[in-house]
């Protein structure tokens, strides 16, 4: 058990490691909270269920409205987090149970899933990938391309260490033979790690809406209807293809449509609120597409343009100037033509007429949803949710990081949809709140 905890162990109490804070989730919110608390001198245990930290942000192409590349601004934070002397980082790790014993003591049972690769020895050479015979859909490229059963999640993953998708592995051992560092270990098992912490920060992020539940948009049926996250990957520097392609035939699209509010502002799918970031990320993608495909027409079908933040309105006007066509009208349905093109049916509010338009690629601007699984982990206290299943902020305006459990704080999109700067500020607030809380007992 001790071997996997690479941070300071000098506070072991009866064989159990002791930390000031457990931060659950190492996306941008978890990283920011962890970094601030670590800078203040607290001992932080940061856990992440994925094999790499960086959350959703590290998978994005560029960010609005500055068009900085997402990787450029995430990697320094990721890097700082991974090497901070006060942060112990565990990937592939989830909290299985958290029991509150006192206001400043929580007993936590962590479960660390096996990589079947010895982390400290893997050099990230990727030789194993070249010999693995199993080809599987790549979830980090949102199923646009495939990966092997043994793989490094993505180019800029941190830690840049391989793992085996054991469910799709035939145990042929080809990787074990090829590995120059001899670090493949099929005998690894799930580990249980017990720790005690004085406080918890929940930074578990959001879920992306899966448009399969909107039958009339044809996602999953029509090949050329993709999600915005798939388009994000096509645009990212660590992209799956060398160009923007459409899935059915690999053609470079010329008439791209965006359908806003897919899964948001929609009672029929159980999400009546606005996801806050989609108008802007769609505008960003439109700008990037106009740069990459100068001959393409981009049409964005919207209800309202939520361009409310600093620089947002200017960014939206810039996209219009660049030639993006914003059409007010909610898309009612999508149908497919024989050549893979799509027909979008909607009421064009400007003319008041029901219209159909043809496009060769449709991007669904999917919304953000709550990710409430963490509430089940707290065993003897209730981590309350609000009506939309986000973590409830019990003193919303006065102390936004407080939850229904004393000593447990919340940061980022675990509370509500928000963009990157708002997430960073929410995480800073959670760090301030946690620090003030911990200072009570020192």
């Amino acid at each position, binding site marked *: 058990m001790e071997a996997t905890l690479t941070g300071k162990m000098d506070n072991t109490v009866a064989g159990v490691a002791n930390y000031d804070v457990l931060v659950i989730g190492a996306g941008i919110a978890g990283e920011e909270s962890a970094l601030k608390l670590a800078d203040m001198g607290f001992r932080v245990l940061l856990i992440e269920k994925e094999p790499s930290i960086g959350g959703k942000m590290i998978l994005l192409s560029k960010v609005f409205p*500055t068009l900085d590349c997402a990787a450029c601004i995430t990697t320094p934070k990721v*890097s700082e987090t991974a090497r901070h002397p006060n942060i112990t980082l565990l990937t592939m790790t989830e909290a299985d149970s958290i029991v509150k014993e006192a206001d400043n003591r929580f007993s936590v049972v962590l479960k660390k899933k096996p990589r079947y690769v010895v982390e400290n020895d893997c050099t990230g050479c990727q030789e194993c990938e070249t010999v693995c015979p199993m080809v599987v859909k790549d979830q980090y490229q949102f199923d646009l391309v495939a990966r092997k059963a043994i793989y490094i999640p993505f180019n800029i993953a941190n830690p840049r260490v391989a793992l085996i998708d054991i469910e799709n592995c035939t145990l042929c051992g080809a990787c074990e033979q090829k590995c120059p560092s001899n670090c493949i270990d099929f005998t690894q098992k799930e580990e249980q790690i017990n720790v005690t912490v004085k406080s918890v920060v929940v930074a578990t992020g959001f879920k992306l809406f899966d448009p399969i539940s909107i039958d009339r948009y044809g996602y999953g049926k029509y090949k050329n209807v993709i999600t915005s996250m798939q388009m994000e990957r096509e645009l990212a520097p660590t992209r799956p293809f060398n160009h923007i392609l459409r899935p059915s035939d690999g053609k470079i699209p010329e008439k791209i449509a965006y359908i806003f509010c897919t899964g948001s502002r929609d009672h029929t799918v159980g999400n009546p609120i*606005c996801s806050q970031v989609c108008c802007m990320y769609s505008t960003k993608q439109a700008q990037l597409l106009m740069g990459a495909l100068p001959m393409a027409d981009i049409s964005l079908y919207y209800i309202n343009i939520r361009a409310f933040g600093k620089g947002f309105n200017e960014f939206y006007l810039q996209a219009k100037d660049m030639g993006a066509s914003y059409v007010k009208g909610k898309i009612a349905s999508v149908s497919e033509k024989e050549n893979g093109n799509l027909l979008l049916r909607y009421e064009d509010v400007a003319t008041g007429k029901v219209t159909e338009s043809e496009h060769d690629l449709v991007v669904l601007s999917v919304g953000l949803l709550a990710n409430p699984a963490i509430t089940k982990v707290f065993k003897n206290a209730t981590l309350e949710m609000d009506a939309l299943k986000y973590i409830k902020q019990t003193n919303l305006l006065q102390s936004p990081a407080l939850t229904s459990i004393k000593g447990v704080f919340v940061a980022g999109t675990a509370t509500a949809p928000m963009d990157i*700067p708002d997430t960073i500020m929410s995480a800073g*607030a959670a760090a301030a709140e946690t*620090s003030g809380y911990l200072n009570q007992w020192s």
Partner: protein
Amino acid sequence: MTKKRIGVYVCHCGGNISDYVDIEKVKEAVKDEANVYLLKNTLFACADSSQKEMVADIQAGELDAIVVASCSPKLHVPTFRGVAERAGMNPYNYVQVNIREQGSWAHSDNHIGATEKAILLVKAGIARASESEALTSSKIPAANVVAVIGAGVGGMRSAIALADMGSEVYLIEKEKNAGGHVANYGPLFTTDITGYELAANLLAEVKKRANIKLFTNAELVEKKGSIGNFDIQVKTDRETLPLHVGAFVINTGFDSYKPAPGEYGYGEAANVMTLPEFKKLIDNSSDKLIFNGKTIKKIAYIYCVGSRQDDEGDNKYCSRFCCTAAIHSSIQASKKFKNITNLHFNRGIRTYGKQELLYEESSKNGDIYLQFSLKSIPEISQKGGKTFVKVKDILTAGKEVETEADLVVLVTGMVPRENDLLVKQLKIPVGRDHFFNEIHMKLRPVETVIDGVLIAGTCQSPKNILETMNSSMAAAAKINSVLTKGEITLEPTLAKLNPALCTWCGKCAEMCPFDAIVQTEYDGRIVAKINEANCKGCGMCTPVCPTDAIDLAGFTNAQIEGMIDALAEN
């Protein structure tokens, strides 16, 4: 030129550079420059794996210096200085070359030119690194004391957070009372608490904490020093106090846009009022809504007044909070009074996030929404003692609609507060929208380019109360994490004086605003000496020396002229 082993890294920046600059050409052109020992290109120089590689390269190659050609130094200087330190190299032997903001992006219309410029910039970086010297930072004690300017709800929250984290706080408020705008608000949106209650709660928390000193009727009138050690003067109505602080958190808030006379009839007709005026009216009315002796039934709201002035006007930004605030007020009006009809003349409703539920509620209440564009804004007219609002409604394909209204509410946005004295004192940078400017919108939203001056709340940009709280607490967390260490590391790029050349003319001492030049004895004569504790590294003393005896470390004659020679090459 000094002989050195230099590692040069040219970054693709994920395409941001490599899409415009031919990286291979750059490498080809610089590979034979003097002192280039190692030359690599990277997809993302700042990525962890690249950083690890650099550390390994420095150690294996025993490199004396590295040059990273990538983005603006504003972004990653600390990152790569960290790389140098971890590799055992002095961080001041690392040189950053900007071939993105001042290369590929500035010249994205000219790939060939951008490549040629990148080549010369990298050569200049190599020249600079060839003459770089190891510099050691000194540390000075830092006061864990923060001056929070503004005691609105944001400022009070910053103060409380700082106090709980162990900082001493001076909370400085210009007005007679703390609480700012919010103290005058009744019901607030997305919560049950009222503005008065929120402000009162926060003030009670402030008063509970012995390490927050609240000054009202107080203003900052003087400031000297730098992060960790500022000496300020605060003028109250009774005295002027000298205080010593380590940093500032600016929470000076916003002002409400005041419509120009005649704008939608404001100032001409009594029943045309701003949203804050309307909110006050409904908060202070119970049972019946009466204005100027008339019972109010029909209320017209005109949105985006003073914001989103796309064509003319200074305020191009969206004020973010007002769609929600206006709709919330209309819901309040419907709840409290009978027979209210709300008509919302808007340019697209921006009730983002969970606030969308308020838009839904108001629609269910029977509120009517009409949308206009800047090409045909609503016309307000007075006919026979009645007020009419006319508009071409986008939602009904441009149909012209006219309605009577008892009240016209102009949904006014936020404007930056007039703060000339404070801006002058602290040199707070101001953005294109006239709000205070953060270093980097995405990465560093609460810091400014001035070390020790942080900005939070609406003085940075329009936002609602929840966002102000997050921003204020984030600023508190940031500055506390710096000051709590008890010491600040100074930049060692200070002036260096060669006493052998000095003839003590006194010109440098005259120039220095920081008392950093003193007299000393050397070789039997009086010469100048730099007092490093006071030296700020500005370089003001360097051009005036008649014998050119002073150089600024990191910007020496050898370095600058080496760069000039490289850039001048054809």
